[in-house]
Every structure is written in C-alpha cells, then in structure tokens.
C-alpha cells in the first residue's frame, strides 16, 4: 500500500524537476548577458534579495523565540493564537494588510505600496512566523532537557545555555525553513503584486509581467530568469547542506565510539 503512495509521490515530484528541463529548452536563445546588464532586472534582483532576506531572517528569529517560549517558558497560549495566521492564504493576508495600511498605519506613518516594501515584509513575517514555529516546535518537543539542565548546573549564561543545549539541534529545521522561505518569498507573485510598487518590482512579479504582456513575445527572457534563479537556489541549498552534513549526522546518529 505505502509502496503505491511512494511511487505516486515520486511521479508527482518528478514533474517540477522535468519542468526545469522544459524551462532550459525554452530559455535557449535568451540573451542572459543582456539580461544582467538591464537596469530593470538588476534593480529587481537587489530589492528581491533585500525583501527576501529581511522577511526570512525575522521570521526565523521570531518563530524560534515563539517555539522556545512554549517549551522553555511554558507559554502554552501561543499554541492556540499563532494558528490564526495559518488560516489565511497569502493573497488574502496581502489584501488584509493592504486595507490596514491603505491610509497609513500607525498614525499615517507607513502606507501600502511604498517604495521600501515594508508592508510586503510585514505581511510575509506575519504569515511565515507560524510556519517556522511549526517547523521548530517538533525539535523542541524531542529535545532532551537534560542538556539545558546541565548547562544551568555549569552556571553558563543564558546565551551560552542556548548555544550549547539548543542551537545544535535547531540547525537542521532552521536550515530547512530558511531555504523553503527563500525559495517561496524570492520568486512569488501574489503578495508583492498587491503591495509592491511599479519600480523596482520583485523578481516574480517582473518575470510574470514580462511573460504575459506582449503576447508571450518575451517569454524566453522570463523562463531564463526563472531557471537561473532556481539553479542559484539549488547551489545555495547544496552548499549549506554539504557544509553542515557532518554536524547534522552527528546530531541525528550520535558520536560513534
């Protein structure tokens, strides 16, 4: 029974990977060097990196703090309330934030569609903190509290206690969450299209606009950008996983004596 499930799941997973081959075939002929020189794409890449990194890092820190608050400080009420943003699809949350910031918030300070993309970042943080919280919660549930007790007994300061008794176990879920969020935020359309500005657009918005305007005449350009960005992310994933492989294996299987 479960073998059928695995085969079907693998067939489903094969699709996006074959999709990359199709992307490659269709982007042949695109002037990649020309794309890199084009001001619009360069500005878009800069703002995409800024929005992605700020939203991802803030979500990781806040999500971890929340999971820690539940397991270390017994703040169980968070379990109930942090679920709320999970019920809201990204597009709906973008509209809710648009309504909230439409006339400037708080006290007219920040408006929706402003050029620093602050509302885009806040929307992503609001949506992704519960996701990171869920990813890290499992690790905290399994964490051996003996390590922390030992660190306390040795009178380490709170930061050292965290770095020796919790951080090593958090590396894997945080690394997974980091790349999932980066892949998701850096090349998306829905949220930045609603809350972003006309220049510079985020990569996903620009690529989709270039693809669909002008009867698909510029399609190879959009496909090339999608492919290059995916390969760039794959490179990052591979590098960080290779660099942390030894450490993760030691945490998963223990030290061989």
């Amino acid at each position, binding site marked *: 029974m479960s073998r059928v499930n695995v085969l079907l799941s693998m067939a489903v*997973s094969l699709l996006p990977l074959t*999709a990359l081959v199709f992307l490659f075939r269709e982007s042949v002929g695109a002037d990649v060097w020309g794309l890199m020189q084009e001001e619009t794409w360069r500005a878009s890449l800069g703002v995409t990196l800024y929005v992605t990194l700020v939203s991802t890092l803030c979500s990781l820190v806040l999500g971890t703090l929340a999971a820690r608050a539940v397991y270390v400080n017994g703040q169980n009420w968070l379990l109930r309330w942090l679920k*709320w943003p999970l019920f*809201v699809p990204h597009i709906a949350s973008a509209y809710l934030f648009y309504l909230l910031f439409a006339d400037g918030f708080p006290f007219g300070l920040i408006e929706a569609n402003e050029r620093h993309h602050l509302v885009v970042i806040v929307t992503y943080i609001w949506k992704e903190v519960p996701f990171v919280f869920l990813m890290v919660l499992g690790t905290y549930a399994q964490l051996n509290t003996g390590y922390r007790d030992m660190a306390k007994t040795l009178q380490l300061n709170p930061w050292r206690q965290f770095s020796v008794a919790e951080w090593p176990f958090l590396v894997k879920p945080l690394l997974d969450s980091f790349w999932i969020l980066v892949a998701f935020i850096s090349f998306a359309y829905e949220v930045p299209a609603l809350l972003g500005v006309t220049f510079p657009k985020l990569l996903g918005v620009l690529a989709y606009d270039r693809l669909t305007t002008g009867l698909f005449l510029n399609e190879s350009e959009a496909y090339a950008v999608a492919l290059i960005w995916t390969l760039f992310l794959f490179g990052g994933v591979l590098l960080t996983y290779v660099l942390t492989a030894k450490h993760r294996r030691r945490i998963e299987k223990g030290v061989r004596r």
Partner: protein
Amino acid sequence: MRRLVILVLILLPFSGLFTSVPTFFFDDAIINTVIQVLVIVSLNVWLSIGTAWWLLFTETKWRTFIEWFLFLPLFIPALAGTFGMYIALARFGLVGTTIGVLIVLLVVTLPYSIRLAYNAMSVIGRPMFEQALFMPPLRRYRDVLFPLLSGTIQTIALMSTVIVLGQFVLIQLIGAGLISTVTTRLYQVYAGNDVALALQHTWLLILIPAVLYIAIGWGIRLGVKIVKGRL
C-alpha cells in the same frame, strides 16, 4: 502586558475584514474552489501519510536518494515550477483543463504534506508505529495511523487548503484564464476597486480553510470514537 501586545500584533490584520459590509453572492468560482480544495486535500492526506510511513520503515540503500528526491521540489520556487510545468503541460494539451490545474496544485502542495507527516511520525516515534507493522494496510490506516495522526491530518488539510487558495498565477497560467476560482476573482475585483466585493472574497478565502479544519476535527473525533468502540 507583553501577552496583550503579541495578541494585538497577531489579530490586528483581521480588523480589515470589518471595514465594510461584504456583499454576498454565489457562483461557479466558489464551486470550482471547493472542489479543488476537497480533491487536493484528500490526495495529500492519503499520499503523504503512506509515503512518510515508507520513508520511516523501509530499509533500502535508495532511502536517502528518495528522501532528497521527494523534498527537492520544496526548494523550487512555485512560480518557476509553474512556468516550467506550463510549457510541459501545453505539449500534452492539459493547459486550460481542470485536470492540468489539479496536477500542478498537487505538485505544489504534496512536498509540504510529506514533510509534515514525516516530522509528526518522527516525533511520535518508531516504537508506537512498530506495533502496526504486521497489520494489513487498511486496518493499519484505520486503527493506528488515523487515531495517532489525527492532529497531523488536520494540519496537512489546513496547509494544503491554504496553499491551493493562495494560487493566482498558477491557476491563471495553467487554467489559461478559463478556470475561475475565488482567488482569481479577488484579483479582478481588486483591480476594479470594489472593496465590498473584494472583502466578500477575502472572507471566503479565510472561511473555507477554517470551516474545513473544524469539520475535519469533528470528523476525526467521531471516527476515533467509532474505532475505539470496535476495538
């Protein structure tokens, strides 16, 4: 005090829902959306639990490879994947069809569901599941996996519903603009600047996952009671 500030930060965005009275009407976009959600949620729950079970219990040298293979799509941006699948599906005449849209929706939701099921099973731990190893598959699902993973089934359903409801480009591109859902309508209404109508769609996008989550919770509790009565 700190608790109050955090609660306000979490709940404040919902205030937008009450800025004006939403209009109410019913059309096939809502029916399309509900059908998509139900099909994708059922497939996700069934495929992810079986796959996670296999990953946890099968000893083979291919395991790490298969694990990577199944989780790799998580790192492909959904939009880039959609572009590629658009080219691929166009060759098989699946662009503009419901089947095409459903396939791509399954592709973007399944890796998350497998991950959730796999994490939940690892937290519950092998010893609890090992007791069910020699049961026939159907009884294993009904008597062991279903009661133990009830919370996870609810989370998988919620996550896949929310991902399905969040897709605008995917449905617009793969559906070739022929398949309308609540999400695609929200964009059109938003461009038309009709706040009341846009709010109705936003309410729907939040209510569909909430109602499904509560309904599945009820169903699971009832199901577990029936299973317990039989054992």
